[in-house]
């Protein structure tokens, strides 16, 4: 993320362009790199997962207005991947062709950035018919509202890429990975699901790893599985943050863990 701060939001004027397949231009969507996860939220949040309307997000997967309710007994598809703090959406765009039948959602707190990702996905869909229908984005505070979006054991992958490091100790409670919040992530993940974290801040990398190691519902993924996982490469190449780190020749630290069921001694 480069420096210009706070310049006006050009969301509206961009909309028509993206419908025609033109990618939105980032400079109209600059936002501060930080957002306070503790403040009261003013955006709508679904009361429960039942009220999270997926048809707006994935129109191709939810054709018509609940037509054929009775005949199509098949369960409606569910979101399986969540990219928490998706930023400008690079990972989603990278993952979409790899898992064309999996619904994925990006969750982002900054409204302008969310708007950018929305336009980006619309533009990609317009210029690549039949593709990118499985990705979407929602503006939300995932530290507060994860259970409002997903049911128990719904997700198979969760991503936390280059989260805000919140260096000061008094701000550690704002970190998106913590023992407390891992309880909720474990709740929405199915047993066997995988949680991916990566950062270029060594201290935060250690923190995220130690939280996951201490948590009884997660275990580290063996090194060979990490090597074989096609998603892992995307962690350090797909997102805007990772590209910036690579440009600057920075180091990255990942922690990749599996959701396990609880062993009570």
């Amino acid at each position, binding site marked *: 993320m480069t420096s210009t*701060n*706070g310049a006006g939001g050009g969301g509206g004027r961009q909309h028509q362009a993206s419908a025609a397949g033109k990618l939105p231009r980032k400079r109209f969507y600059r936002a501060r790199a930080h957002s306070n996860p*503790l403040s*009261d939220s*003013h955006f709508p949040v679904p*009361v*429960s*997962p039942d009220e999270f309307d997926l048809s707006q997000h994935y129109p191709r997967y939810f054709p018509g207005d609940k037509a054929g309710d009775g005949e199509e007994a098949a369960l409606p598809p569910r979101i399986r991947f969540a990219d928490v703090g998706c930023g400008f959406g690079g990972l989603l765009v990278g993952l979409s062709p790899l898992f064309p039948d999996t619904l994925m959602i990006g969750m982002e707190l900054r409204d302008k950035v969310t708007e950018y990702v929305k336009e980006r996905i619309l533009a990609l869909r317009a210029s690549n018919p039949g593709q990118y229908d499985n990705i979407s984005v929602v503006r939300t505070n995932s*530290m*507060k*509202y994860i*259970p*409002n979006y997903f049911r*128990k054991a719904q997700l198979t992958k969760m991503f936390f890429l280059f989260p805000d490091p919140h260096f000061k100790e008094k701000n550690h*409670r704002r970190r998106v990975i913590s*023992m*407390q*919040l*891992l*309880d*909720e992530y*474990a*709740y929405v993940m199915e047993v066997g699901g995988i949680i991916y974290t990566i950062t270029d801040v060594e201290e935060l990398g250690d923190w995220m790893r130690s939280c996951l190691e201490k*948590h*009884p*519902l997660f275990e580290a993924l063996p090194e060979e599985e990490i090597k074989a996982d096609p998603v892992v490469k995307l962690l350090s190449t797909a997102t805007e943050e990772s590209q910036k780190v690579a440009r600057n020749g920075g180091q990255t630290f990942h922690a990749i863990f599996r959701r396990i069921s*609880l062993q*009570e*001694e």
Partner: protein
Amino acid sequence: MEDTTVEEAEVSSAVEFAPALIAAHPHGNSVAVAIGLELRVFDLRSGCPVSLSDDSGGRSHSGSIRAICFSVSGALFASTGDDKLVKVWKTDSWRCIRTISSEKRVSAVAFSNNDLYITYADKFGVIWLVNLEEDGSGHVSVDIKPVSILGHYCSIITSMKFSPDGRFIATADRDFKIRVTLFPKNPLKGAHEIQSFCLGHTDFVSCIAFTSISENQSFLVSGGGDSTVRLWDYINGCLLDTFEVRDKMGELLEPNDQDDSSQAIADICPSNDGSLIAVAIQGFSGVMLLACDLAGKKLSFRKVITMEKSYIPTSLASSFSSELLWTVMGASNMPSQASSQLLTRLRIIRCFQNDTVSSSDNDPATLEDSEVPHGEKLLMALQGSLDIAKQEEVLASVLSALKVSMHKMLVKKHYSEERREQRKRGRNDKKIKS
């Protein structure tokens, strides 16, 4: 700038009021009322007020008490609140055996069903647990540190209860959520496995209670700022039924009686057999009784018991052994009121049980002051005064204070778009740059 200061003043004064609380011993041995920093206990067996003694070596309460509870066995009692102290009392002697210091103000407290642990929730939404086991010498080790076992992310916990079988701990918060967590055999390592979230309230959840038909089947009931009482299958996080209190009140009351449009649920209390639920409603002088059909998984209206106009209960309690529903009203730190006077008003409802044969003899009804068990002695001890019912203006001032207090604490403030933009402009980090 100007209205920022106004707002801050509002907030700080609202925090001062603390609604009165009531708790009844599960076997009906005693009843406790907390008002401000005062704890009043009355022994129902001997018919005497209890004098509390404290040999825990800790300080006594110096701030408003926000939560009290008896343990399921009745052996222990806890009081806690704004002074960041959690005090554990033995109810046989009413000695304080332990004073735990919390880092933050405490908003809810509960004992595990086996009396081994106490859990309390702080203002940041973290639930702490302390092992109450005594070592061999009969003394509790003082240096046992509280451990955090779970947390709601930066939300005020409004209510915390253990399930009747002791397997789960349920916590309700300001962000509309109820979380049901497995309470592990060794909780000192934390309670990480979430059984369910009960989501459906569209405003803060103010109170939760378990209710059961048999030993192995229980349900959760909740009340909230959205003026609903909800019945949950908490194992699966399923909403079974919703009772719209506001709609019912609209039918029952004259339109001009409904001055308080919020009608948030202040407290709920299920009867012993689980067939009735008493509901205290903000702005309603009385108690609403709901019939709770646990087999049919339905909540329905039973009746309202109205009381004098200036009496709005803030807290409800009942015990296993009697059919009395205890209600209390009061608020501490009233600006108009001298500090020595912490007046509360107590009303008791008899026959708090569902009776299919509804004769006028065993229908729930309010007891007159003369019919109260132990009469004036009890009222004197718990109310602080006998003739409070006559002090209309005191009650009226309590009433208006209550209207502001609970709501201010729990309801999220809504700022207009312009206000938010204006605040952003005044942000410090930006000021420095420009």
